């Protein structure tokens, strides 16, 4: 009797629970369809309104955005209703996925459409599909290819930044006093905005007449310290500014690598009579290879986006010598309002970057600490 009671109690509850679960499941199946339907109706309605087919609609597309958010919430709720605990797990990742998809997928595809139009913001006729015209002018655009060639130089200079950063990391890892002070001082340039750096260094320190850098250069025997008039010197000046900002980043990564390295290995080498030079090349450098490659790859990826400093200091000059692809497209947008062509350049550049970075990762991943 005693044992039977809980059993019957369980039996009473079971159908209740099952029907509850079934109801949840039903709701879970209906919800995505319902919300998708509402979203689709709103989108179609708005398209028709914008195309002047129907008279009533919203002024902007903002309501569609709200509907999208509701749709995403409904999908999340449906996950929990259908799949219970596993659905709750999915809730962790859904916000980020919905956000990224909404913010990246649409612009990328819309960008592809813009890229094949002759859209110029200053022209009165609006945008028209113009087929492969943009591709043709891209292939013949000497300034674009020039900017692309500059990117190769800029990427190669990452190695120079790496060498300096490694030196600094070794210095900070040596037995020194006031390490914390030096670390903070070395890190500060990384914090500053490239736009402020453009003025602080590019426009004032390196200024031809009064800049301290120019004065110093005169003292050192350079009679005509113009940092931004001849192509290679201008390029090197931009590289120097970029290095000033980014060397701390590489340095911090390498320093962390050095500190994670087992002390015994270098100690043992010292005991065996290896000179510092030998122990660096035969022990420290090989052990640091994974961190080094990771740092270099990350920096190259950031280098491919280099724009702010160039836009604000030289605007690509002299004669396009310092132009990066990003700064060139930026000027195409802002000064010539050439939206269609600029977007084609950007999409083309994206394809090149994807191929390049994929190859780079393929080549580098066997040396790297950890992929993705």
């Amino acid at each position: 009797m005693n044992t039977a009671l809980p059993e019957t109690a369980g039996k009473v509850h079971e159908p209740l629970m099952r029907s509850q679960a079934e109801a949840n499941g039903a709701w879970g199946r209906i919800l995505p369809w319902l919300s998708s339907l509402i979203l689709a109706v709103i989108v179609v309605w708005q398209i028709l309104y914008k195309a002047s087919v129907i008279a009533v609609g919203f002024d902007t597309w903002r309501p569609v955005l709200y509907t999208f958010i509701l749709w995403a919430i409904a999908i999340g709720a449906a996950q929990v209703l259908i799949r219970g605990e596993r659905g709750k797990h999915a809730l962790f990742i859904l916000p980020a996925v919905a956000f990224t998809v909404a913010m990246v997928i649409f612009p990328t595809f819309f960008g592809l459409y813009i890229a094949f139009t002759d859209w110029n913001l200053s022209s009165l006729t609006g945008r028209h599909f113009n087929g492969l015209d943009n591709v043709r002018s891209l292939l013949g655009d000497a300034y674009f290819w020039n900017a692309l060639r500059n990117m190769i130089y800029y990427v190669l200079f990452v190695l120079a930044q790496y060498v300096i950063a490694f030196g600094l990391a070794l210095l900070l890892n040596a037995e020194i006093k006031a390490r914390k002070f030096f670390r903070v001082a070395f890190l500060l340039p990384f914090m500053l905005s490239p736009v402020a750096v453009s003025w602080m260094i590019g426009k004032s320190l390196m200024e031809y007449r009064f800049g301290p850098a120019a004065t110093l250069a005169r003292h050192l025997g350079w009679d005509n310290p113009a940092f931004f008039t001849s192509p290679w010197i201008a390029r090197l000046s931009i590289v120097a500014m970029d290095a000033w900002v980014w060397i701390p980043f590489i340095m911090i990564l390498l320093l962390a690598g050095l500190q994670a390295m087992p002390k015994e290995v270098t100690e043992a080498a010292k005991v065996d009579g290896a000179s510092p030079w030998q122990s660096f090349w035969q022990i420290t450098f090989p052990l640091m290879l994974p961190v080094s490659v990771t740092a270099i790859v990350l920096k190259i990826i950031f280098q491919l986006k280099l724009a702010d400093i160039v836009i604000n200091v030289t605007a690509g000059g002299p004669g396009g010598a310092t132009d990066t692809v990003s700064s060139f497209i930026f000027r195409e947008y802002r000064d010539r309002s050439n939206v269609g062509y600029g977007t084609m350049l950007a999409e083309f550049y994206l394809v090149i970057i994807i191929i390049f970075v994929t190859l780079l990762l393929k080549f580098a991943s066997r040396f790297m600490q950890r992929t993705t």
Partner: protein
Amino acid sequence: MSAVAERQAQRAWGGGYDAAKISARVLIYGALILWTIISLFPIYWTLTTSFKTAVNVMQGHLIPWIDFQPNWLGWRSLGLSPDTIGEISTVRDEFLKRFTNSIIASLGAAALAVVIGSLAAYGLSRFDYKFVWMRNKDISFFFLSQLILPPVVLAMPFLVLYKELALLDTRIGLILVYTLMVLPIVIWIMRDQFDTIPIELEQAALVDGCSVWGAFLRIVIPIALPGMVAAFILSVILCWNEYFFAALLTSTNAKTLPVMVASQTGSQGISWWSMAALSTAAIAPLVVIGVFLERYIVKGLTAGAVK
């Protein structure tokens, strides 16, 4: 035998060994001080120039009170010097508006990115997902691959999209773009952070009757807090410094500080001292963050890169 003998020989040398050691010390500290000067001089130069007058700038004076007498000229032109601070100043209003915009945009984006980024990172670190053909590794790669997307590719579509959504020149719009920009970095840092937390802690909480979300909020979040702070600070810095999107997507209302600095740089007539004052004001918050929260920045930068 040889190693021991050499060491003995080295000890016997004594004096010469010390001399080499001292010269090595001198070299190390010399190099450290040289790079400290390289790192700090531009900041020092900007700060002092904001207190200079035309004569000081032209003669290249460097040290205040010795070379030149500090003057509030630069700060007065911003309306931030002691004698103008009480008065009405349009420049100051403009500056404060840009400053507020920058603060709201960077804090808002960093907060949003840390919230949704931490959730995603936790999910990726603990559960096995399968979405069509994508598994955890592919989903992680999908997020991280956003890093290589150059801003120019998104700029124009965003301009059009925002115009249609009435988000152009709003701070909300800026926050959304910045969140997208720093989200991969936040996920990277937080996943590394969650991977180091032993899974047994949550299992114990689950046994005690906590739900998955309860365990996450009550057990995991407090442990992962330093990582979240690191991700937050790094995001704030990146957003504060962002120029490209701000220049294209904002105009009168939501313009941020870097855009204001850049627009002043372009005009030739602008005087160095007011430019220096503006730059100083723009970098001051970051220098403060850098000095006091350096530990977190280093933590954020090195997450996942070094194991």
